[in-house]
């Protein structure tokens, strides 16, 4: 069982090693990187490549670790008791299984994606330490112990909003997805738009990396933004010479709204273009 990328996802050799290590040693894999470099997509692609089910657990600031295990719905039990419902006598009726429970009890070991783990409270990863390490937990209400039949592959993504506790990190493999270089980027584009003209890709990439190199941008455009932009360029059937021209007037790329998401960044590019124009006069 080895992951080598898929026909819709380009994996660099270091990413492959990290994923395969996590699969072989059955440890969680922590993925970090700039937004838009394909952290969440990785889990989808690994699931597709290995032919496994994917369970997604998206973390919000209010998510508690307990919600991943199970939730005891005391309120509906209370209501049922007032209405004299028969269900009230069995506490199991009020325990809602969480994602981890589903992942542990699935027949074929699935892939569990814990997305944006840093969004949650600081204590969140600590609360999951034992559960992810031993892959078991207790249900206090019924006294059962849920143990993983087949250990699922856990992929965790983080956007670095909070530091994760050391004890948690020690149990994971870590991979930082760095921003792809031009060569990898061409591969990625070919995978997404197989029938795009080479020339368009080349010109667009040059422009894209130029924009990324502009110092002081608040939000540098990322891979996913580049893909959106290319899609737009194709739909609009943008003439090539618009991209290619070295005319400083077009320093601002066409359809820049897909690349720059911050009006200050757009202003800055405009200002730079203006200054360029003056120099060239």
């Amino acid at each position, binding site marked *: 069982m080895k992951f080598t990328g898929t026909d819709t996802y380009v994996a660099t050799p270091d990413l492959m090693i990290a994923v395969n290590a996590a699969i072989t040693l059955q440890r969680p894999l922590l993925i970090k990187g700039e937004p838009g470099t394909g952290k969440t997509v990785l889990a989808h692609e690994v699931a597709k490549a290995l032919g496994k089910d994917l369970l997604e657990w998206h973390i919000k600031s209010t998510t508690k670790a307990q919600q991943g295990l199970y939730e005891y719905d005391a309120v509906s039990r209370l209501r049922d008791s007032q209405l004299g419902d028969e269900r009230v006598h069995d506490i199991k009726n009020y325990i809602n299984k969480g994602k981890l429970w589903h992942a542990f009890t699935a027949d074929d070991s699935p892939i569990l994606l814990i997305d944006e783990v840093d969004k949650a409270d600081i204590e969140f990863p600590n609360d999951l330490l034992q559960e992810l390490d031993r892959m078991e937990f207790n249900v206090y209400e019924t006294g059962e112990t849920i143990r993983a039949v087949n250990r699922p592959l856990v992929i965790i993504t983080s956007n670095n909003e909070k530091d994760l506790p050391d004890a948690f990190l*020690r149990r*994971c493999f870590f991979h930082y997805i760095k921003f792809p270089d031009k060569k990898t980027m061409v591969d990625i584009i070919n995978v997404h738009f197989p029938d795009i003209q080479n020339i368009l890709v080349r010109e667009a990439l040059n422009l894209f990396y130029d924009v990324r190199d502009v110092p002081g941008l608040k939000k540098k455009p990322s891979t996913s933004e580049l893909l959106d932009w290319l899609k737009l360029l194709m739909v609009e059937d943008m003439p090539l010479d618009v991209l290619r021209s070295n005319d400083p007037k077009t320093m601002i790329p066409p359809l820049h709204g897909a690349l720059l998401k911050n009006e200050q960044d757009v202003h800055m590019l405009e200002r730079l273009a203006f200054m360029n124009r003056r120099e060239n006069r």
Partner: protein
Amino acid sequence: MFINFFMTLREHGVPVSLREYLMLMEGMQAGLADHSITDFYYLSRATLVKNESNLDKFDQIFGHCFKGLEAPEAEDLTAEIPEDWLRKMAEKFLTPEEMEKIESAGDWDKLMETLKKRLDEQNERHQGGSKWIGTAGTSPFGAYGYNPEGIRIGQKESRHRRAVKVWDKREFRNLDDNVELGTRNIKVALKRLRNFARQGAAEELDLDDTIQSTAKRGYLDIKMVPERHNAIKVLIFFDIGGSMDPHIKLCEELFSAARSEFKHMEYFYFHNCLYEGVWQDNSRRHQNRMNTYDILHKYPHDYKVIFVGDASMSPYEIVHPGGSVEHWNEESGEVWMKRVLEIYQSAIWLNPIKEAHWDYTHSISLMRQLMNDKMYPLTVNGLESAMKELSRKH
């Protein structure tokens, strides 16, 4: 050899533990890195490094520990170069100062391109000098010399650890701490100051209280509590103008991050040192001055105070009445600083100047003493320790 590698990592402050080392061994045993040293590098990196700010350190140590394990990447180039060019004739002696001076030729691609061009141009053996391929020079091409981004041609092992390999490329250099301080990083650091409290309208269900109260009364009695908010209150004083001009961008970022992070934030400007007047709008600083006393009276002592400034000025501006460069101040800056610190127990100073340079400016040491050593550099690390200090209970 691996133990040695492990210990070196620890020595240089990469936080690795036994658990991770055993995990690496387990991975080796499972045959995850059988094929090449590059695979081993990737595996050990995924196992041992858990924070991207340590990746660069890891790359350097890896390069140091396993140097010479594999032939240089550019080996296939040797074939095209006549042997005798590369025979070691002499080694140019370079002092560390000289090494510093040698400029790198640019990135990898440019290096390869230049090399090809150089190869076409060059026809005879060459030694020394700083442009042509040969031995013992400072050109990026050739062996036994020094250039930070050199390609090794015909040299047995790395002398300066500078030939560019995967880990030697040091692609993660700019992820190292201390340097990069974007708005996002600042926000993350400021989040440490969060202190939640319940205030406002009751709109969340309090389950525990509901159950208890229902059991007591015998009918469903729903209890609500207000949502939790960040209740931290902050006063920020920014030094502005003069020597602070080079740090404007950094301060802007700090400002916008603090703005969005703290609901109760008040900011004021001062110049060089705090005196009897501050202002909130820098373009009208002389018309709309506020009395510092008013501020001390208005904001209660549970506010946290942050000063942002380089504290670089003439010592007289701190210790003497009338020392201010802008106006005649009746009382010295020292008196005003002490007044503020007496009221607000949690107060820190953030300094955009690098910590290593603090000792060279007398006024910085003075101000640091006044602040009881609670001065922190304006870096990710510094900001985090500062927030830790501020969140301490007094």
